[in-house]
């Protein structure tokens, strides 16, 4: 019998590691992976609460979040590939202009 608190603490720690990745790493692919990690930790919290109150709604919302994350990754990676093609670097510190 695991208290729901434990899941929330784990979710908070995973979210913080994800936020740290976005702050520290300068490779946009790894920043993107950190964003996925944060989404995932939010999903974990949502499923934990849904299981604690014995309701299916949380699980269905997680299903939607997974679908939205898939869409987001497809568009984001397409953007990264395009940026790499036009600038030949993917270091985010060197991306300082909106003009292609």
């Amino acid at each position: 019998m695991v208290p729901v608190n434990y899941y929330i603490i784990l979710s908070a720690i995973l979210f913080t590691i994800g936020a740290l990745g976005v702050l520290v790493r300068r490779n946009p692919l790894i920043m993107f992976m950190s964003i996925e990690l944060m989404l995932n930790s939010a999903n974990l919290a949502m499923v934990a609460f849904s299981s604690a109150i014995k309701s299916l709604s949380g699980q269905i919302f997680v299903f939607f979040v997974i679908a939205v994350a898939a869409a987001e990754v497809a568009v984001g990676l397409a953007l990264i590939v395009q940026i790499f093609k036009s600038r030949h670097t993917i270091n985010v510190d060197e991306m300082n202009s909106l003009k292609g």
Partner: protein
Amino acid sequence: MTIDLILFLILAVVAIATALGMLLSRNAVYSALFLVLNFATVAVFYVLLGAPFIAMAQITVYAGAIMVLFLFVIMLLGAEKTPGNPKWSDYILPAGLALVLVLESIYLLISRGVPSGEIVQPEASVNSVDFLRQMGMALFNEYLLPFEVTSILLLVAMVGAIVLTKQEKGGRG
């Protein structure tokens, strides 16, 4: 210590270790593989929480489709090792801020005692067809509109990805 708690603690250690491995790896391919392991661990958490459908969706969509796409792009761009990897000293300020954040949120959660209650072991019926039927009923009755909106979102994302990567012939590049 029940078996559930022991399982939870072991899995929590694995989840945090793989997340840190993702954060600290110098090589982007290793980061991606650590993240696959993390997603698999979270899928096991979903099974523990009595959400087998979400666990399978997690494996197929996250660990399968999304991470394969990531690995594909990493290898396509040759971005395994980008220059400008952070030094250890670069981690100090963000890690300090993150530590403050996580301690404060955990303190608030514990002191207010808001998320009370325990996750009891899910009944075996969770792994039956009947559970999937309930889920499908909820998805296509109560949540029909969000479901349809999601399908439109996926279509838009697909069109967007194609438009972004399309080679323009004779037009502006």
